[in-house]
């Protein structure tokens, strides 16, 4: 039982430190201009990685399942200039339907 609480404490404190490292250590100081160029690209690089891993990843495996159908529905919704909420709903509904009828 104590073991569990040690895990909870270490993960909790460790995550807090990871989240706060940049904001606390860097403060409000502006970064050197060459680094600003790198930081501006962190968002597209990380978001694309999150799209790829949440759509295709399953532990250490790459799998194509209903999530991919959901993502395709999202692409269509985005092409139609739908708002973010509609894009997310389209993906969830498409994936749920595909699973309901048992294709993927």
């Amino acid at each position: 039982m104590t073991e569990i609480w040690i895990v909870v404490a270490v993960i909790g404190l460790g995550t807090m430190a990871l989240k706060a490292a940049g904001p606390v250590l860097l403060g409000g100081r502006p970064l050197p201009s060459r680094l600003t160029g790198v930081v501006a690209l962190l968002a597209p690089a990380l978001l694309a990685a999150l799209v790829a891993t949440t759509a295709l990843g399953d532990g250490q495996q790459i799998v194509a399942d209903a999530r991919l159908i959901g993502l395709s529905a999202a692409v269509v919704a985005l092409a139609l200039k739908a708002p973010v909420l509609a894009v997310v709903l389209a993906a969830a509904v498409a994936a749920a339907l595909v699973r309901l009828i048992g294709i993927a």
Partner: protein
Amino acid sequence: MEQPPPIRFELRAGAVTAIPLAVAVGLFGVSFGVLSATSGGMGALPAVVMSVTTFAGSAQFAAASILSAGGQPIAAIAAALLLNARYIPIGISVARFLSGGPALRFAKAQLVIDESWAIAARGDGHFEQGRLLGAGIVLWLAWVGGTIIGVIGGDALGDPAALGLDAAFPALFLALLVSQLQSRRAIGAALLGAAIAIALTPFTPPGVPIIAAAGAALIGLARR
């Protein structure tokens, strides 16, 4: 100079944008609670404390599934912290947009998760502090609330995957990514980041591919 919008407006805008995600996050919180409270799991109270303090879904699921599969505590800790190491580059990207002294900045940084960070991104490397905090608060409430419902007895709510909720996350990240693709370099960084993440997934523990994908941003060092 252009007057920045009042922070209350930005807080509300962030909160409203986060609501559909909060539904999905809340339901995943329920499944985290259910997984933790069933036999062999970490238990109800540790699960709720973890959601309150850690507030990072993928890391918590990783830790909970390792523990309930009978894995070592050290393995659960390593997996969770590895998954959350992406918050170092994410934290650096928002650092200069958070106001206040070290203690306040520390507190505000806790509301940063993938979704609130993405909602706050303006697309040109700028982040709206108010949106980040508004979205973060709504998502934190959903995550903690969902966990509590789950440990009390959310079995009845069913499997989030059957509802297509797992497909909601890639769709959200894609929608937010599209608004970021305003330059050729951004498109290059996105393609490279996705390629790195997919290429590493089979060979590294979960979490590493996303951290490595941050390396794609280094193309920003090249001269224009």
